[in-house]
């Protein structure tokens, strides 16, 4: 069965510039916005963490925004990560989930820091705009 580790490895080119130590936290919840709290009781989260040579998937605990050290926070609806993984193209499905609100994103650093930390390619691939959008 495919794991997120396999997916990250398949798309290694999107993370080629990501700096060691940079990470994305994925904290599922329903509705996703329920996790937007400064402090909360710990719940399981997944970290996509840049190691010396590749992205690694690590388990962690989400305790609210205040103590989060990741660069980016993904808030998938409960079950959305599993749905994406079962899909033939998990990243495309993730993108769809982002678009229809089954997954939300918060950025924990400034745009230039995110760029310096190497996230531009991945953000572009997900269609996360670097622009403010008055639509």
């Amino acid at each position, binding site marked *: 069965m495919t794991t997120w580790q396999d997916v990250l490895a398949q798309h290694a080119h999107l993370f080629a510039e990501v700096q060691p130590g940079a990470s994305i936290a994925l904290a599922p919840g329903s509705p996703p916005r329920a996790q937007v709290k400064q402090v909360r009781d710990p719940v399981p989260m997944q970290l996509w963490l840049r190691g010396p040579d590749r992205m690694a998937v690590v388990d962690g605990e989400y305790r609210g925004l205040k103590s989060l050290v990741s660069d980016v926070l993904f808030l998938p609806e409960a079950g959305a990560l599993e749905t994406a993984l079962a899909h033939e193209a998990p990243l495309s499905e993730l993108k769809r989930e982002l678009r229809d609100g089954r997954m939300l994103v918060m*950025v924990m650093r400034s745009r230039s820091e995110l760029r310096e930390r190497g996230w531009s390619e991945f953000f572009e691939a997900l*269609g*996360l705009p670097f*622009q403010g959008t008055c639509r």
Partner: protein
Amino acid sequence: MSARPGEAKLPHLFKPGRIGRYAAPNLVKYGACCVSNYNTRDGFITPRELARTRVIAGTGCGIITNQGAYPDPKGEGKSYFRQVALYDDKFLPQFETIARYIHDAGAVAIQQILHAGRYGGIDLGYCVQPSVVPQTLPHFRPPREMSKDDIRRCIGEHVDAARRAIKAGFDGVEVTSFMGYLLASFNSKFTNQRSDEYGGTIENRGRFMRELIDAIKQALPEHPFIVRLNGAELMDQWGGNTEDECFELMRQAAGCGVDMISVTVGWQEAPESSIGRDVPPGYWNRLAIRAKQECPNTLIAYGNRLPDPVMANDCLGRGEFDYWEVCRPMLADPELVHKAAEDRLDEVRRCIGSLNCLSRVFRDLPYSCTMNPALGHEVEPEYAITPAAVKKKVLVIGAGPAGMEFATTAAKRGHDVTVIERGSRIGGNLLGYATHDLARPDDLLSVVRHYEVMAKKLGVKLQFNTEANPKFMRSVLHQYDVCVVAAGARVDLGAYAHVEGRERLVDALDVASGKAKAGARVVVLGGNKVGLVIAESLRKAGAEVALVESGKRIAEDVMPTFKWRHTSWVEELGIRTLTLTRLVRITPDAVVVADAKGAETTIPADTVIAAGPRRSNQELFAEFEWMVDELHGCGDALMPRGMDAAIHEGYRLGVRI
């Protein structure tokens, strides 16, 4: 002045109004649509801006709102690269000039104060907010929480800025919370998570707004005060305010005695479009109607994506709101109100909702408008339409947007203009674009209709079904002083010369114009704007469509605020997309493509559409060089780009020739 003929047809729009002790000549409010990025980086208004505001003052609106100025010296409220400031008297002279322009034109002058809050601090490494709620768009700065002292100081800075505006000669002041600025972030339960008296219940969240209103009303009791408030935030997925809560906040504002509430829609971060081309005119009117019902004793101004004066007149007539607040339609055509008053609505250049204006503002560039090439260049005489010193006979080749914009502009200057066109009507490739557009074809067709009307009114001669070639040119030798090649571009089928099976290729422009028909299984080569529009339209009509793009991403040539629209259509419609993929060969029933590593894939296809690269129709330049005195070109004929460049170039050539 006696009533002009159109005023009787739009009696509600042209009814005199009143705000506080000020009389307005009609019920049209120029919405603050002017964060222009024309000013200095440190907040001073430039001659370029003054020239622009002179045009705004002359639009004929009863109330005119000058662009939002940030009120604090640190620039925490500053949201745009060249936004104007009002935190010191040193800025006053130019504001005085603007207030004078507005009064000279007979309108009520309102100065807007714009503290961007969550979207501010553009020159700082942070922004200020009621609570630390991280950004959802990387474009904006990381947040810092405001202390109670910060809140007090911030209200004080708003009051000082308001006093300064009045000192400069403005009649009243407006504070905006448009699209999620500071006021909106206090009101919202998404961004306001405070546990003190400024957060929690809706009563507490509205406290900042009420204190702000009270402070300004106390400081300036004689002067109208307006707030812009969301009728809907469109932030449900983030737990933003519900519509009911938005209206409760409006009632709070009304209760504090604001003179007018301007109803807006959406936040920058909202996933849904609020003012784009895919939103039908009038779509959000219900919010204004409810605002009027809930706050019957407060003036309600409204106009988001309500570009049509006839619709607005009807809404005013039904009492749905009190002032039509217009913004982009006035950018596209600053003469809109005068044309309506003179019963010349057919001459209006409609705002097509392209959002080129805001795309540019968010790229830190001065704003410009697809439909109004002179916008932002009012200070330059070179951009003005002035009588031509030498009246010339001009031949234009091509009735696309570039050729027609040139032709109508040149005709306004007194030139004698003839357009020859291979096809049977005005529009060029814009017609094909409009036919297949999923957003709002009518907006694009309005551009074509405008040229049809203006060509007729200006006496531009049109010769259809006529191909310009050397033989034709010889037949009209010495009859014209000027020839303008506006013949557009074509798909460069020569680029596929080496491809096996290329005879099965169909030209995307032929599909767009209806000359060629596509089957049920289509492969489109080129994920650019032409390829995307065709792919989306065919898919919508039921075909199975795959899009093959040799570059890394699709929609690379699409303007920033519309890229997301294409990528989401592609996904919603289920168009298979292969990027970093090149065409290998075409077989009788399929297309073979290869990815970056050379791995081949076969895609079954009964139609293979070539959408790129495009190539300019430039041959005529060489052929006509020795046949006419002046030879010029504009639009895609110079380099394939898009509608904006075609219109702007046609105009620039028209004012110069």
